[in-house]
């Protein structure tokens, strides 16, 4: 079945470069004046440029599809080496470039190119928006470079080209984030405490922050790569991999010592720092939500849906192939990942506009994927037990599955958000300006709601399957491992479970505040009231149906269908992903995944992954049948049937919603802050209770008579708590020194213990509950560490 490909990696990269470079150049012929108007046909250079990027992405898609599905074997690597001409004998290369398309790279190239095909089609619609006027040229050019460099990152096979590709990505995306930079109203600092003002200011900051962050990450990567390269004596991937696992025949005479634990761990930590900053792991998560919402919609979808996942690809390369992992690396990765997921979902709940919330959710999902990587990293080092190896492969499959899913549902959500932005003519996607979109733009809203169901992980859509896989991996891991691992896995499980529940909450908030209910802006309300609902729905003219933009809606439809497909056919997808994971050298000696099931050696339940497909389909069918019965119960009463026999029209009464007896007003709707108030209340600490009695003070005036707050705090000093002996024999000087010393110490102890005591005992019940939980975890850890080995 596997046959030789008729292109080599070098040829592929060459063709891609030619197409995207042409796509980069052509927009410069455009005379795009800043008219600020929506223009239905784009000018020809913009269209040609988008078409070229579409062609390039299609080419990459076809090739990577054939490789990823094993129709072709991996494309043979190509390298171009040109030595520096004036040092004839030395081997210093002036140009060194190597490309290779293996299964893992092909998988990522498949997602990137498939996604950019969709984004390019979507851009034909989205770029007509008026607020892109004057920027279309730049956006189309930079879009080509961005897609090209992102593809290049996963196609190259040497570290220098990798860094160069990353740099191209940085610059092109930095340029894209620039497009809101020069609007006149965003250079001043926000004065009002309005989220919209802050966002405008963020758009001004975004390019600078992005450049800074990217280059910090590149600096870390350069150090890591230097260490690897010095050790291996080569900078291409194969050389580094050979240095880690020297093959007996190739390396021959020169046997390399493996990297020591300290050096290897340094490489791990450096690359984790570099890649973690790039994907936005805690504590570097802040930049993503600042930068990404500022970029134009089509690339916003591309960058957050896809480009951020390049970091995951590099993590797989760096942690599993370029180094020999140690078990504790996985602990770090897993904990960081779970904290990332948890923290970012909180931020998403607290955020005030759609794009920012989605950006935080992207990082949350990156956290879930990285958690899969972390589990894989923990168990891949356990060479002795076969089930651990199996589990590591399963965890990696869960990671890749979630990556695929996230690309699709998050792409859907971003594109729907972009469509909302498009339809609202770029007037902001803050919740306070939205509401009632489902009635204004039914199709766009349907796409967003489908994406929301998928990302919240509800069956039968795709988010459920990967969340299920991740949780199952953690459960299997808890069953078969050392006590310390169990403690780490349970901590991660708790954090991820809370993150999953909060994701559902966050999307409840987003959908219900932005898409359901009544519009919050007067203009939208007038639009709705202009025509009765039915008439508007049935209006035939295209102009009266604003959200029937075929390019945008079609793409969203495709993505929605993919969400459903990946959700109800998990068995197929898992087998495919397992084959890809098997192709990674560290996982290649595992049993093939034909027998992939949770039913492994130690007798895990009866549910195999291949069979999961069946229950989900049956569940969906059963739910549909029961739903039909439910509909009949609700709508077909005997009286209705009699009415139908008499051919009376069915009566459907519509009444105003119950508003406590007062007429409806849009202002009485729940806002986003009100909806999330209870959940945010868990994280916010209550103000400390007022002290019951005042501290003793020196001085004549009692403390409550001092009016000024600052003055009062200054006067709460503890003078002379410890009185030295009144013995006259002691010299005055010594007595004074000791007195002030002890008093100093006693004051310090008193004030610090007082504040510490108030901090730990603030009378807040939630804090005590946290203590209980923490002490349980502490007991768990202590027992697990010191318990006798069985």
């Amino acid at each position: 079945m596997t046959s030789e490909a008729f292109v080599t990696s070098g040829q592929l990269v060459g063709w891609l470069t030619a197409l995207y470079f042409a796509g980069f150049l052509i927009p410069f012929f455009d005379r795009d004046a800043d008219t600020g108007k929506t223009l239905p046909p784009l000018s020809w250079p913009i269209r040609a440029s988008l078409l070229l990027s579409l062609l390039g992405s299609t080419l990459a898609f076809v090739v990577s599809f054939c490789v990823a599905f094993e129709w072709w074997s991996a494309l043979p690597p190509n390298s171009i080496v040109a030595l520096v001409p004036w040092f004839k004998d030395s081997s210093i290369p002036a140009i060194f470039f190597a490309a290779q398309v293996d299964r893992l790279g092909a998988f990522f190239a498949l997602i990137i190119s498939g996604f950019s095909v969709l984004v390019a089609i979507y851009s034909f619609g989205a770029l007509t928006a008026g607020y892109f006027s004057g920027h279309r040229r730049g956006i189309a050019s930079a879009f080509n470079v961005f897609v090209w460099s992102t593809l290049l990152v996963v196609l190259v096979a040497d570290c220098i080209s990798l860094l160069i590709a990353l740099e191209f990505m940085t610059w092109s995306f930095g340029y894209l984030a620039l497009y809101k930079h020069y609007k006149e109203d965003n250079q001043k600092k926000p004065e009002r405490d309005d989220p919209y003002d802050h966002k405008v200011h963020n758009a001004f900051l975004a390019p600078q922050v992005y450049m800074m962050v990217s280059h910090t990450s590149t600096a870390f990567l350069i150090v890591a790569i230097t260490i690897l390269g010095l050790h291996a004596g080569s900078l291409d991937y194969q050389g580094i991999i050979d240095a880690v696992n020297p093959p007996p025949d190739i390396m021959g005479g020169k046997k390399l010592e493996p990297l020591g634990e300290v050096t290897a761990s340094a490489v791990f930590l450096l690359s984790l720092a570099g890649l973690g900053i790039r994907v936005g792991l805690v504590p570097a998560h802040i930049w993503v939500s600042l930068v990404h919402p500022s970029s134009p919609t089509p690339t916003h979808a591309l960058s957050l849906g896809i480009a951020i996942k390049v970091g995951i690809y590099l993590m797989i390369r760096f942690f599993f192939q370029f180094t020999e992992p140690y078990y504790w690396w996985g602990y770090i990765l897993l904990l960081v990942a779970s904290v990332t997921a948890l923290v970012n979902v909180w931020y998403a709940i607290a955020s005030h506009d759609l794009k920012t919330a989605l950006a935080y959710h992207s990082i949350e999902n990156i956290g879930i994927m990285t958690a899969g990587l972390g589990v894989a990293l923990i168990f891949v080092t356990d060479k002795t037990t076969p089930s651990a190896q199996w589990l590591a492969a399963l965890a990696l499959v869960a990671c890749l599955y979630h990556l695929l899913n996230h690309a699709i549902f998050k792409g859907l959500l971003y594109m729907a958000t972009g469509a909302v932005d498009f339809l609202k003519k770029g007037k902001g996607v803050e919740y306070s300006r939205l509401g009632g979109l489902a009635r204004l733009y039914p199709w766009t809203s349907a796409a967003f709601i489908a994406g929301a169901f998928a990302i919240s992980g509800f069956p039968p859509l795709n988010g459920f399957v990967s969340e299920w896989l991740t949780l199952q991996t953690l459960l299997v891991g808890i069953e078969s491992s050392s006590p310390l691992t169990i403690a780490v896995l349970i901590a991660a499980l708790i954090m991820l479970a809370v993150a999953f529940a909060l994701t559902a909450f966050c999307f409840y908030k987003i959908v219900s505040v932005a898409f359901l209910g009544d519009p919050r802006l007067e203009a939208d309300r007038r639009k709705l009231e202009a025509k009765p609902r039915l008439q508007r729905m049935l209006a035939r003219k295209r102009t009266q149906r604003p959200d029937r933009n075929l390019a945008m809606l079609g793409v969203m439809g495709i993505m929605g269908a993919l969400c459903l497909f990946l959700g109800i056919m998990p068995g197929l997808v898992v087998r495919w992903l397992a084959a890809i994971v098997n192709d990674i050298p560290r996982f290649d000696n595992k049993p093939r995944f034909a027998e992939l099931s949770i039913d492994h050696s130690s007798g895990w339940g009866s549910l195999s992954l291949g069979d999961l497909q069946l229950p989900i389909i049956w569940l969906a069918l059963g739910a549909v049948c029961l739903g039909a019965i439910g509909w009949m119960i609700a709508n077909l009463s005997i009286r209705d049937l009699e009415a139908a026999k008499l051919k009376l029209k069915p009566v459907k009464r519509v009444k105003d919603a119950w508003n406590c007896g007062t007429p409806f007003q849009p202002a009485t709707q729940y806002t986003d802050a009100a909806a999330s108030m209870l959940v945010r209340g868990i994280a916010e600490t209550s103000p400390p209770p007022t002290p019951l009695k005042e501290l003793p003070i020196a001085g004549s005036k009692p403390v409550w008579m001092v009016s000024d707050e600052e003055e009062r705090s200054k006067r709460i000093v503890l003078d002379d708590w410890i009185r030295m002996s009144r013995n006259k024999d002691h010299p005055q000087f010594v007595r004074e020194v000791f007195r002030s010393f002890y008093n100093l110490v006693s004051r310090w102890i008193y004030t610090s213990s007082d504040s510490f005591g108030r901090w730990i005992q603030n009378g807040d019940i939630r804090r005590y509950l946290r203590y209980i939980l923490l002490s349980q975890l502490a007991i768990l850890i202590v027992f697990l560490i010191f318990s006798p080995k069985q």
Partner: protein
Amino acid sequence: MQEILQGLASGGALIVLAPGLLGLLRLTKARLQGRSRLLTTVLRPYRDLRRLTRQLSIRAERTTCVFAAAPIIMWSCYTVLAFTVPAFGQPPLLQIDLITFIYLLALARFTFALAGMDASAPLGGLGSSRSMFINMPTELALILISTALALHYKTVSLGTLADKQYAEGLSYFLKADLLLIAFAFVFAISLEAGRQPIDNSEAHLELTMGHKAITLEYAGGDLGLIEWAETVKLCVLLSLFVSLFMMPITKGITQPALAIGFLVLLGIAVVLLAFWEARRPKLRLRQIIQPGMAACVLCLLAIIYRVIMGSEG
């Protein structure tokens, strides 16, 4: 073929019996609280259902199809779960695991919460935000319960869990972790079904309503469907509890008697739930976290116990 029929019959029986279970719960509570028992009977919920389904539905203005679809999605989620829980001492029709179970429960809650905000009335928003807030401790507690069960039985598949637990027989009372999990499960039932300490399903004042405030906008057949679905949820959760933690008592009994035994135990569980609820005031809103945390701590204790004891305990 016979298995399929049996599975269909047991799921259908759970759906049909569910309102009666609620009637029994209300009756017991009324007796315990000294209210007149004339006010309620076991069959009362059936009569309510008949009355509601005969009435015309009223749709609130400014609603979308989310509002119309929510009762049906909720109903189909809960009723499909009735075919996935082991009941009447026999394996369920559809084999799913506890995690899928949790996500299906959350799906129904999520859809219904969306419907609450759809009518754009403040009270729907109040109810739905409270409902989604309760979802968080509930889901955490349920996932930790499945972790603890997985650690003990190496499976989270519902049917297999019930079989293994049944095979334990009475000796499961000697295993501390299983008892802790059972206790945590009781908290989880109250949280998920919105029973008394968490939420008052018989509230009549909007401000004190939790989940029920969403139903304010529904009337007629839709409301009947919602109320039936709620009882099915309670019934499904209780029969899962009975199958996992009470059925081992009946070890040794063969099939026809086993089904009757299951029914009796289900009745006992309902009466016990009524006792648990009767003298318990509703918690304040923010304190709802506490039972969830209590369930989590119990599960963590169970996990610690299992890890320390190894496989022999």
